[in-house]
């Protein structure tokens, strides 16, 4: 599969010269299979750029939302393929105990927050609530599980026919309340089942180790904890993702260097950079 990072920023889009290299768009990752299956992971502001690359010959797109915080759905209304009547769009998102996925999405995709209502979009939309076990989407097998982050939030594990595995956990705080993190067994660590042995792990790394104690419970990880999580889960390649809006490119370089000095990861590490592409 081919994996492209269209938005790497967390919480708030952060354009500007100081963030130009790692990127200012919020979470969005495009996954293209060998047979042309198109998956879109989250619909942050990065999805606008991705939308422009989807060929008119594509008949189906699956958008996998990890959760409905604004930085993960804000770009949805600007995803141009939604305005194609011939396109089948499947949106997958976390279940809630009382309010349907459609109703929750419509809180944003309806006036006054957005001029076009979800039901008025020309494409053929089908909504799916997750986690719902393993599902086949085109050539991929996709599984999801709730992970530690405020409100219903899932991570995804995507497996291609050759056995290549992408794990996507952009908003995740496995260390929350765990006095023993990262030394608990894999089964007792949030998200570790999704990430186990992944060829590519895209994981939250919003804070520095120094910043994290002031943000415990906010649902995000430090660079250091992201490295520890990758090591624990046996991932082969970690992509630290969901950069804090207050971090400039220079800050991110420094934080990564500091984290690597604290923990020597057992895997390759490539800090998420908008536009970067990975092959699995």
């Amino acid at each position, binding site marked *: 599969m081919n994996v492209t990072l269209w938005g790497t920023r967390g919480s708030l889009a952060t354009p500007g010269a100081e963030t130009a290299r790692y990127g200012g768009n919020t979470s969005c990752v495009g996954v293209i299979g060998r047979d042309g299956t198109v998956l879109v992971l989250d619909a942050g502001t990065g999805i606008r750029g991705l939308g422009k690359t989807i060929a008119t010959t594509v008949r189906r797109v699956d958008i996998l939302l990890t959760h409905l915080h604004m930085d993960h759905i804000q770009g949805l209304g600007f995803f141009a393929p939604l305005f194609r009547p011939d396109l089948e769009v499947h949106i997958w998102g976390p*279940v*809630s*105990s009382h309010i349907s996925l459609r109703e929750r999405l419509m809180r944003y995709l309806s006036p006054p927050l957005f001029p076009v209502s979800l039901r008025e979009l020309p494409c053929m939309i089908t909504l799916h609530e997750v986690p719902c076990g393993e599902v086949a989407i085109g050539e991929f097998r996709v*599984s999801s*599980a*709730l*992970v*530690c982050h405020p409100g*219903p939030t899932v991570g995804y*594990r995507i497996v291609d026919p050759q056995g290549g595995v992408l794990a996507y956990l952009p908003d995740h705080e496995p260390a*929350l*309340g*765990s*006095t*023993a993190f990262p030394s608990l067994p*894999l*089964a*007792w*660590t*949030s998200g*570790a*089942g*999704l990430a*186990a042995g992944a060829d590519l792990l895209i994981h939250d790394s919003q804070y520095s180790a120094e910043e994290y104690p002031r943000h415990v419970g906010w649902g995000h990880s430090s660079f250091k904890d992201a490295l520890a999580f990758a090591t624990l889960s046996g991932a082969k390649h970690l992509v630290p993702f969901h950069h804090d809006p207050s971090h400039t490119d220079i800050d991110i370089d420094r934080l990564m260097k500091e984290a690597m000095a604290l923990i020597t990861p057992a895997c390759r590490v490539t800090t998420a950079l908008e536009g970067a592409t990975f092959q699995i």
Partner: protein
Amino acid sequence: MTDAKSIQIILARQLASSIATPVLLVDAQNALIYYNEPAEAIFNQRFDETGEMPAAEWTSRFTAVDDDRNPIPPNERPMGRVLAECAPVSRNMWMRVSGGDWRHLHVTAFPLVGEKGQLFGAMSIFWAI
């Protein structure tokens, strides 16, 4: 995926490991999957030493009787009832573990139910009387 615990169970353990109230956790099959340090003091054994135990094993190690010293069978104990009825249970009982001292306790147990109504297990807290 590996045989990962659900986030509801993971967070329940993380809560239990952070509080001074004795807590025991079971999964939906009534297997004992965790008890915290305050509970270790009541049970007189450490979780690290016993580890997880199937229902038959831990319910035979943990002897329970009512205030009249009549034995309470596993399906009548709070955890057994919570899982069968999917509703909270609270009662007094005497308990001892592996032939240790009898403890007079008030036990409150409640189910851990997911967003879709699925039962993940149960948590019980123990209060010395």
